[in-house]
């Protein structure tokens, strides 16, 4: 069995004041192996972020199931699912979502707050994670005292501090200039080279080019897979990049 198995996942929801249900995902199935770096691509509203949150144990699918490391995620109770997120998953968000009133070190310590580690262990782990991101000298900076790239790296350090088997990134380069975006993608690739499994939502073909494989989604349906992204992909979304 694959590390992550997505089986026939459908998601519908009823917007407020609308009689009919909107379908966001239609019978999506996919598998991701341990150690893979996978991009999830698609235009706005295609359902890629919804799929990420479903894989991220945050949003119950209407149908289908998600199995990660042989755990059927939505068989767990809501509170146990929170524990699962803490133990198995690291999230990197588009806006980084650092808490503005906590220092870089404190932000990285957040996922450890609810663990049984003692104060010293928490601090040491967070320091190591930040040092790994090259931010060893910025522990006490508040987010607004950091550059966009540095904030992104703090967000990655926070996602990794629990050493989760799976890193989920939602458009980590979305709000960044291209240089900073490249910096973040570089960090992710380096992590993947060290064995980290990563699933990244992006609509940036350059970012997708850094991955092993692209899952393309449109109107809630998984279109196709390209085992080797970049210029071999043959998908419309890649063409602009290949043309360069």
């Amino acid at each position, binding site marked *: 069995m694959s590390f992550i198995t997505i089986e026939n996942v459908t998601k519908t929801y009823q917007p407020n004041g609308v009689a009919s249900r909107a379908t966001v995902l239609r019978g999506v199935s996919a598998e991701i192996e341990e150690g893979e770096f996978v991009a999830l691509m698609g235009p706005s509203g295609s359902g890629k972020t*919804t799929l990420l*949150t479903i894989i*991220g144990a*945050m*949003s119950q699918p209407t149908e289908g199931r998600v199995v990660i490391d042989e755990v059927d995620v939505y068989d767990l109770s*809501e*509170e146990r699912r*929170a*524990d*699962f*997120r*803490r*133990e198995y*998953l690291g*999230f990197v*968000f588009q806006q980084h*979502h650092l*808490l*503005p*009133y*906590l220092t870089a070190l*404190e932000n990285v*310590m*957040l*996922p*450890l*707050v*609810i663990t049984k580690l003692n*104060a010293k262990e*928490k*601090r040491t782990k967070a320091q190591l994670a930040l040092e790994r991101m090259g931010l060893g000298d910025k522990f006490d900076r508040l987010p607004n005292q950091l550059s966009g790239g540095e904030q992104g790296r703090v967000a990655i350090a*926070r996602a990794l501090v*629990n050493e989760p088997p799976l890193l989920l990134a939602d458009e980590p380069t979305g709000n960044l200039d291209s240089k900073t975006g490249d910096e973040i993608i570089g960090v992710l690739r380096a992590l993947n080279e060290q064995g980290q499994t990563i699933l990244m939502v992006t609509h940036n073909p350059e970012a997708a080019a850094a991955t092993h494989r692209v899952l393309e989604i449109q109107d809630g349906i998984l279109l196709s897979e390209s085992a080797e992204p970049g210029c071999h992909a043959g998908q419309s979304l890649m063409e602009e990049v290949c043309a360069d």
Partner: protein
Amino acid sequence: MRLIDIVIGSLRRRKGRMAFIIIGLAVGVGTVVALRSLTATMEQEIGAQLDQYGANIVIVPKASSQELSYGGVTLSAATFDLRQLTDEDISRIKSIKYANRLSLIAPKLLGAVDIDGQKFLLSGAQLDQEVRMKQWWQVVGRVPDKADELLLGYEAAQKLGVIEAVKSADHDSMLHSDHTSVRQPELKLLRTELTLGGEQFRVVGVIRETGAQDDQMIFAGLPTAQRVLHKPGELSLIEVSALCQGCPIDDIVAQLSAALPEAKVSALQQAVRARLQTVERLSRFSTALSVVMLLIGFVMVFITMMNSVVERTREVGVLRALGFRKSHIVRIFMIEAALISLLGGLLGWAVGALSGVLSAPYFTETGAGAKPSLALALAALAAAVIVGVASSLYPAIKAAKLDPTEALRYY
């Protein structure tokens, strides 16, 4: 780093808003504390006044026809009463429902005696109690504790040639007043032996001039008086003190009347009781105001916490994504509420206690400031925290119930 560190960090960031809510709570708690401590002071003052005025209930036999009176109550020397009060009535008084509210039961026997050809009113009483009840008495010498000892009123003592008033302080005087701070003439006992009903007695103390009827009286222990007056076991009146603040005096009178159907039970000190009622009304008012204040505090914290939840929706989404359970989110908001209300309660208590002390002179006769009481401080803190936590329960649960993906998308 613990949950509370997240809370403190977030509070630091929203200093202005938090200061506002803390001050709001403090004003509420402060008002309640000031009112409470003021009414407590006023109640204490009234209680002390009641103590000074003495007994507030007098029990006498119903039928009477006679010439001797005491404390404005006419007493019977005649023997044809339907029924005299007796020692047994004491135990009946102690059996009423509100017996525990009675601080003092002082039985007395009064009767006319002849000494050296002059008529005096002899009062037999439990003199140690009598002295406690009549706090204005200044006894020179001591209170009788033996069967052959007497205590004399000021005028009676003069008539019997026991004392004469000495104008200036006389350091050779054999007796000294306990109240040395008050400049009063020293009293000198000229004679201590008296013959009463053929028995020899010794005068051991004289009461300084009171301006009341006590000045003309002779006091002895109750059994002594009963023996001298040949009325064994009989009583002329029973004084009862119900000095507890806010005592249901009317109920006590009714219960005493029921227990002693042949006696007349009357409550005294209407004026003081009227004042007590005023304070009771003030106390009720302050209770009502406290409830209103707590309600306002409840609503204020509720609104602030609801706002806080809305403002921090995205933060809740992040924490949930990072693996915080719903219960962790509830705890974060509850800790925040508890911290805020603890600070508000502390500040409010300080302000309230201070204003209670400062405003006391305007509300009480003695002007004694309300002493800051630990119980009130604890009650204020507890009330603030309970209000804060209770009003935050719903917002906290609402925050925990946020859908994490929706919360993350919130702007």
